[in-house]
């Protein structure tokens, strides 16, 4: 007789809402006429993300004391809820960004269904509390994203991106699975807290297999977070995928992977923290170095932003490596702001791309700021935010991350971060230079005919991202309170 666990349906509500939306969108692809498919599917998907957002917000309010639910397979706590809020918000903005696209919409229903399903997978994953649910959630959203990356079947680059993502991503998942198996083999436990307990009571800290497993788990999550040296897929996939999908990948995937990394490391391996903090710090330095240096020489904006996202993974890994309460807060604050900036900047790139009908480079961005003032100013703010200049939350995020590293006693990590920021300025300012400072004779305006397309939903998404980026600078206290409550769910 197998005893069935009681199921806390409320804890699962964000996933369930999104799954329902995905199902309905998929049905729409078959049932409604082609003409109505795109608007209906988009509305269903948006409602799904909105519902998940609200459900996660309520969950945040009602989960002050974190506890495991459904046989401790998932953890209902504020850390998960906050990450779910960010993922759902990113998804909602991405629906806005994708909707205005003028590309082929032969698969609108499938597109929005996959978007909702990827969101559901991420939302499930951030609250995972044992190795089983971890792998399940990871594959769930990854498979959705593999298809999304290749959804523009007419574009060779998109197919290539999908395939690359599939192969490299599967490799990452396999490593993670192998690592999980090793950890399970040593401890005999699946739950994160049980693993920690087992390591502590049985003194397994020095076990070579356990440490190997830990390293493999970090590697697997590093693939998803696109931290160097596991970043090789990032530039190609980000460049090849449809830009709206890239926006979603760069924000939501990173949120999920980093929150999960923090959760696993802090909950399951507190005994080995002297090992993994150093490992994470090394990954952070590698990401900062590779991301920033490679971004310097890019001419294509999407590729440049891809390398910049690698370097931001580095900044956020600094917060994880700090392994203290301040670091937890720093990571969550940074993730909120970073997601907004990432979606916003890719949305602006998408707008320019649609205007020109070709990939956006630093050269054909010339004059963009004067032609479309709102998007130009927004891009300007996002770049300043990425570079960590004041008046954007990016500054406060970096400040917190560096403070956490200093509190850990790692002043050298602060110096590395500061040096990386200095390098990053060059390529972020290059975008501003391209948009505003080219002399008129250098402008090569695409003869698109008439005024630029009005993309209300895209502009609205950019406006929301812009608001989050700027307001987070002024209203630090409320946001950091959220982050503090969320981080309090972990034994930091």
């Amino acid at each position, binding site marked *: 007789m197998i005893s069935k666990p009681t199921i806390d349906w409320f804890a699962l509500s964000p996933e369930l809402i999104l799954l329902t939306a995905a199902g309905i969108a998929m049905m729409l692809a078959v049932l409604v006429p082609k003409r109505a498919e795109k608007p209906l599917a988009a509305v269903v998907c948006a409602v799904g993300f909105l519902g998940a957002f609200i459900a996660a917000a309520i969950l945040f309010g009602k989960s002050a004391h974190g506890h495991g639910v459904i046989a401790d397979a998932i953890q209902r706590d504020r850390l998960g809820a906050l990450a779910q809020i960010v993922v759902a918000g990113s998804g909602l903005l991405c629906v806005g960004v994708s909707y205005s696209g003028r590309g082929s919409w032969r698969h609108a229903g499938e597109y929005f269904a996959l978007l909702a399903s990827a969101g559901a997978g991420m939302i499930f994953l951030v609250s995972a509390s044992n190795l089983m649910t971890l792998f399940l959630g990871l594959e769930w959203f990854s498979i959705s994203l593999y298809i999304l990356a290749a959804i523009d079947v007419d574009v060779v680059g998109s197919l290539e991106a999908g395939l690359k993502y599939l192969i490299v991503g599967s490799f990452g998942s396999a490593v993670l699975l192998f690592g999980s198996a090793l950890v399970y083999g040593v401890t005999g436990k699946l739950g994160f807290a049980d693993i920690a307990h087992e390591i502590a009571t049985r003194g397994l800290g020095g076990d070579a297999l356990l440490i190997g497993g830990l390293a493999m788990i970090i590697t697997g999550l590093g693939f998803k977070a696109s931290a160097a040296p596991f970043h090789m897929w990032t530039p190609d996939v980000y460049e090849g995928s449809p830009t709206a999908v890239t926006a979603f990948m760069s924000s939501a995937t990173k949120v999920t992977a980093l929150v999960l990394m923090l959760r696993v490391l802090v909950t399951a391996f507190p005994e080995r923290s002297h090992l993994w903090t150093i490992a994470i710090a090394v990954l952070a330095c590698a990401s900062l170095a590779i991301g920033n240096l490679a971004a310097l020489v890019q001419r294509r904006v999407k590729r440049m932003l891809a390398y910049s996202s690698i370097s931001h993974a580095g900044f956020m890994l600094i917060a994880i490596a700090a392994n203290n309460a*301040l670091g937890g807060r720093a990571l969550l604050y940074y993730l909120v702001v970073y997601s907004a900036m990432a979606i916003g900047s890719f949305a602006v790139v998408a707008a320019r791309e649609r205007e020109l009908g070709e990939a956006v480079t630093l050269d054909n961005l010339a004059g963009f700021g004067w032609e479309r003032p709102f998007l130009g100013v927004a891009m300007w703010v996002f770049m300043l935010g990425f570079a960590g200049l*004041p008046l954007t939350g990016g*500054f*406060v995020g970096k400040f917190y991350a560096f403070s956490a590293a*200093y509190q850990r006693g790692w002043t050298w990590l*602060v110096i590395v971060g500061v040096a990386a920021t*200095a390098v990053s*300025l060059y390529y972020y300012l290059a975008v501003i230079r391209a948009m505003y*400072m080219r002399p008129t004779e250098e402008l090569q305006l695409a003869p698109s005919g008439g005024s630029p397309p009005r993309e209300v939903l895209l502009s609205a998404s950019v406006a929301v991202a812009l608001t989050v980026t700027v307001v987070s600078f002024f209203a630090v206290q409320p946001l950091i309170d959220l982050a503090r409550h969320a981080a309090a769910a972990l034994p930091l």
Partner: protein
Amino acid sequence: MTGSLTTILILLPIGGALFVWLFPLPRFWVGSFALLVSLVEVGFWIDALARFHFSRGLQMEQHVSWFKDLKVSYHVGFYGFSLWLAGLTVVVMACAIGYAFWAGRERPRAYYGLMLLLTGAVVGVFAAQDLLLFYAFWEGMLIPLYVLVGVWGGAGRLGATVKFVIYTMAGSLLMLASIIVFGLSQGTFDLVESGTSGSIWIFLGFAAAFAVKAPLFPFHGWLPDAYRESSPEVAAVLSGVISKAAVYGFLRIAIPKFPGPTADVRTAILVLAAAGLVYGSLLAFRAPDFRGVVAYSSLSQLGLITLGLFAGNDLGFDGAVLQMVNHGLISAALFLLAGGILRRVSTDEFAFLGGMARGRPFLATVLMTTGIIALAVPGSSAFAGEFLILAGVFQRGWIWGVIGAVAIVLAAMYMLRLISAVLHRKKGGLVTDAALDLRPAELAVIVPLVACLLALSVWPAAVSGHSFAQNRATRDVATQFSPRAYSLTTTFMATGQGITPVPGNCKVQGSGANTLIICVNRVSP
């Protein structure tokens, strides 16, 4: 009540900038609105000046928590000297905006919005009493400047902006690292509450940012390009105001918060400042163009101001503040005059200039007056400032006084060369009779600057005697923030029990029962 005045001074121009950006006013109205805002700003500053009690220290404070867990707050207020520098800012910015309005700039909404934003940011730097807030305003200055030089500058502006930004950001980010380490080790980022630190590295982080921004020799690589490629009013702001924000950083943060390191590196900084003073003067003497002379004279004057600051005594501090205000007004006026000449002759190279005094009495009078004040003729405010600085630094060592005095001679050489090259000599190749005298609008923006200089010449003590509380720098220093306020006391602690030395403030030697804790303690006034 008076605290809100400080906030108004910061937020009024920023609000004006947002207004200009959000509401599509016609070209003419944008300029006049920006000018109006900058004049109202001057009015508020005069109001603040009238309400200010020069016998007290920090006042007009406002304190709102920003983020609690790291003890960062929006804390603003003015000391005597910061109020004077804020005054310099609002006056120079108003003149610069007026000049731009007269000269006409492309894309006026973006332009005036950025100028107003810059005004707010610089006033914020002078008012900030919290390190992170200071940094936010500090970077807030860079963003509009970057665009102002990069979009409205001359032909070589892109190279100039890249150099400018990379130099200054390298310095600023070192300062950010220093701020984090200093703030967290002190437990607060508040400048008033935090104590002092003995760490040479943190000090150098701050000093790097200030030395690059000022710039001090040998960090002046960005200076000639940025000053030459900017439009004249932006160059006026750069050399008149922004450089003062950097030197202010030394006065408010680097010197008072790091008494030990300041004493350690004093000689090195004095040597660099003296080198910059002489080197800048020589370069100014050799510069082939008007703006080159002003740019390099800026380098040399900032060396002089730094000499005064690192003299570390009353005379030096008083003189440095007076000279900051003087030099801000002088270089702003000179850059605006250079702009006027550029409009008439289309070049400011001396080879093509000359003989412009003939038939242009206003130009001749204004340039002559400014130039004569700039070369510190006795009786001028610049003379008062330089005299105080030299007297102060002489107490530190006679050699500094000698170098400073030599530099004054050099200043006379390059200023007289400039005056004669522009106004006198034979008529230059590109100077035509059609080139008009200064127009009333130009006079309206330059004469106020010169008038301020003349007023200061009559009463230099208005600034030098009203910068530090109780009219004495040392006294002020004793109650607020100077090396003299701290005396080295040695304390023996029997056992180490329960004693947690403030990091940076104390040094622990030995261990166990015979722990020796050497603390730099604050002497209560």
